[in-house]
């Protein structure tokens, strides 16, 4: 997983709405924020659940299970919830209207 993988078209990812996908079995989610497309691991570090089914607000995704929050730009875990470890973030590039993610972090 060292190469760039095409995961979506640019138009698939809309503001305020997480876009869940995967690369070789690794769940990730794409976010459109402040003009950027961001890619972040999509499994909560507390319990195994997809973060993208949670609540996306103010640059943070809130886990649907126990409200652990993560900064989607950095993957940083926000203190206050039951999770204490960060989730990985991945490099993103856009070429000819297609989104590529480099999954090796």
């Amino acid at each position: 997983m060292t190469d760039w993988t095409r995961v979506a078209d640019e138009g698939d990812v809309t503001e305020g709405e997480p876009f869940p996908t995967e690369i070789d079995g690794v769940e990730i989610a794409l976010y459109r924020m402040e003009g950027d497309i961001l890619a972040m691991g999509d499994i909560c570090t507390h319990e195994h659940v997809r973060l993208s089914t949670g609540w996306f607000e103010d640059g943070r995704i809130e886990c649907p299970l126990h409200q652990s929050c993560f900064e989607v730009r950095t993957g940083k875990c926000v203190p206050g919830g039951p999770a204490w470890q960060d989730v990985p973030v991945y490099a993103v590039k856009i070429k000819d209207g297609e989104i590529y993610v480099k999954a090796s972090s």
Partner: protein
Amino acid sequence: MTTAAIETPPAKCWPEDGITRVPAWIYSDPDIYAREMQTFHYGKTWNFVGLDCEVPEPGSFKRSWVGERPVIMVRDHDGTINVVENRCAHRGSLICWETRGKARDLSCPYHHWSYDLKGNLMGLPFLRGAQGKGGMPRGFDKSQHGLTRLRVAVRGGTVWATYSEDTLSFEEYTGPEILERLDRLVSRRPLRLVGYSRQMVKSNWKLYWENSRDPYHATLMHPFLSTFGILRTDGDYHSVPLEGGKHEYTYSQFDPELRNRTSEASQQIKSISNDLKIQDTEVVTSVIDEFNDGMMGAFQLFPTVLVQQYFNCLVVRHMIPKGPGAHELAWTYFGYADDDEKMRELRLKQSNLVGPAGFVSLEDSEVLSLMQPVVESRPDSQQVLEMGGHGTGAQSTMMTETLIRAFYEFYRREMKL
């Protein structure tokens, strides 16, 4: 006594003869039992929860009980020990099912409500619903729905909890004599867990509480004690009620020559069975005077434990009430972190003395389980407590019921009976 007197339901008032009589209805009456739980275990008392060595690292937890209520003793990330009710604030289900273990947080298996190690509610599934539907009202305040947290006192290697804000400090609660005896066993060196035994005893908890305050039965019902020279009626023995009867201690000076001595009293002790043999005599002969005082004894710290030292076997008997007619006995055997190999083996060997099948304790739970249905069948009857007179002072003899009388003096005062 007339037939009518037997058939009349017993009035819930104490017999006129005071503390030399105990009315049998206190061992089975559900209202009395409920009042005991409120007055004692859930009231202004310190309840034993466990040993600090049972939760060695942050996240280590152990299940325990305060009265009938399940609790969790857990070491927090900062090293302090918390005690919280093992009851989800949502719907009351049991959160922790394992006896001991290690966890990052406390999560309920029913609806996965998740609490931190202090019992604060951190999160709950679908707080905001699913697909835009359902979920908690916007105003739901997680900070108002944490686990019930008990006040905690740590003394040496022991951990205690209370429900009441008004309970005295632990040191004031125990008083200086009990504190000194507790410190002798648990505060001088870091503790080491040796092991556990647990058993259900089908008797009211007070029957066991009295049993631990009853040296009169010891040499009579436990042939092992006198046969192998652990305790004899002609040995040095002290029964000391404390804090108005709330606590007590008993002790004797260990006498290695006791078993070889013949005296008038020893001739009369039928329970000395010369035909009993022990395969491994180290259980009773190999004693290291580790406290340099030659003392052996036990003390009760009301309302949950008897802490006992038999030679080099150190054990906490934790009495956990399970309704008017039953209680659990949880035996926790301990030693010290710096015990050498020889001492470790000796403690393990001598732990055979006590516990559900202990050489000097197995008769207790049997006789009390057979006694419970008898006292239940005659709630109007009375027990007689006149050994050693009618008072409640300390006595230097085993032939006394002063400790039981002292307990009921305390009990009546607290229960307003």
